[in-house]
């Protein structure tokens, strides 16, 4: 029994550590929610102790009548006035946090579109929009404003360690700001059940030094470097991948799936779920629905041997 309890506690604690931990906030917005949480928890503990203490006292103490006036005053102040004031205070505090994290300013604006089951990411830069997918990079210490929407059903954008969450609603735009305070690769996920592969709808939120971020964004804005007559790109075109996927700088301009221009510069494959390795890439193409069930991309089991190798090494070269 004790072993079971210890295991359960450990599992719980493990669930609360690392890159998804909102109780070890790595951003300002998560910090404000965390502070509110600890204050509410401490307050609840105090109230709980007082109530249980009073109940124990009432149980133990010798029964004797209270004066009516006192009893009445105790009930009205302790049972009505105090709870109303406390709850109003918490409501205002929570609303102020909400107002701050959704207010419309930020050094950088990123539009994120939730799709089943991946993320379309567009950085608004003075030189124009830069489209990427499934990975979000952020400059340390700067407030980034996210404009969120969805394509098909309601999704929810959440990076527990940095802040959120915020619903992504088809036909509407919601806003959320994130101001990272710690470098690192934080986990993001969809927090609103959206169908079959919902649990596999993830992304990395990579916090970088501002200088490195600017260089990354410049690189991301460039079209892909595809060599004339590249064998892998020829396979990509023959198989019709370009009908769904865009590789900027080539004929491939499909808007259905994730932008692949700098695919290999991402840390993960398939919306934050697999390591970006040639093996996983090959399986992604041939055993698509074993890798991620229900997705809108067809599997290409017939693609084998030299053609598959060429395609995979082409995709892995898109940095």
């Amino acid at each position, binding site marked *: 029994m004790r072993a079971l309890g210890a295991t359960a506690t450990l599992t719980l604690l493990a669930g609360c550590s690392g890159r998804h931990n909102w109780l070890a906030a790595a951003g300002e917005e998560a910090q404000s929610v965390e502070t509110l949480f600890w204050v509410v928890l401490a307050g609840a503990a105090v109230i709980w102790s007082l109530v249980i203490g009073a109940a124990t006292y009432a149980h133990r103490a010798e029964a004797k009548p209270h004066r009516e006036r006192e009893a*009445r005053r105790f*009930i*009205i102040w302790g049972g*009505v006035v105090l709870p109303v004031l406390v709850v*109003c205070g918490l409501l*205002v505090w929570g*609303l102020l946090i*909400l*107002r701050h994290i959704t207010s419309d300013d930020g050094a950088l604006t990123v539009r994120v579109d939730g799709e089943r089951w991946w993320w379309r990411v567009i950085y608004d830069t003075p030189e124009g929009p830069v489209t990427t997918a499934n990975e979000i990079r952020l400059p340390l210490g700067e407030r980034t404003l996210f404009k969120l929407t969805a394509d098909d059903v309601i999704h929810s954008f959440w990076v527990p360690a940095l802040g959120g969450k915020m619903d992504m609603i088809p036909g509407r735009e919601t806003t959320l700001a994130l101001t990272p305070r710690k470098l690192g690769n934080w986990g993001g996920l969809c927090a609103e059940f959206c169908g079959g592969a919902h649990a596999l709808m993830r992304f990395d939120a990579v916090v970088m030094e501002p200088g490195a971020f600017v260089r990354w964004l410049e690189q991301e804005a460039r079209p892909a470097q595809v060599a004339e007559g590249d064998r892998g790109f020829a396979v990509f075109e023959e198989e019709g991948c370009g009908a769904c996927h865009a590789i900027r700088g080539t004929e491939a301009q499909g808007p259905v799936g994730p932008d692949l221009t700098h695919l290999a510069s991402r840390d993960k494959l398939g919306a934050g779920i697999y390591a970006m390795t040639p093996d996983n890439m090959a399986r992604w193409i041939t055993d698509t629905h074993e890798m991620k069930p229900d997705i809108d991309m067809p599997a290409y089991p017939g693609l084998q041997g030299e053609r598959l190798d060429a395609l995979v090494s082409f995709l892995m070269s898109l940095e």
Partner: protein
Amino acid sequence: MAPRNKTVPPGDAPRVIDQGSVWILVAAPSIWAAHFLLSYWVAAIWCAKLGRGTTLMEPRWIIAGLGALCIAAIIGLAVLAIRRYGGVFVIIEEITESSERARDRFVGHVALLLCVLSAVAILFTVIPGMVLGEC
């Protein structure tokens, strides 16, 4: 529900909210519900007509003003609950007797508590409106 009470002078129309009637119980929650709906409509129509990006600066005052009116009405009800029903906030001696008088006191007590609850609920509609003024 006709008042079964003898104190109503003959010839006077029976009052809806008076001893013997339980309508007072639904009055306060209904005021809350009306305020909630009206606030909802005001905000929704405002935002729909003026478009996204407009603020709720003006309608938030409509919502707050309506709230003040509704709370005033609820205070009036609370006064009635005390005057006509002999309601008290805190019942010290249990009401066990089966009589008109005891029933009225019980209804008055419940009505008073519902008044407090409805007033707080209205406050909870007004506060978000005051803090978050966006469509």
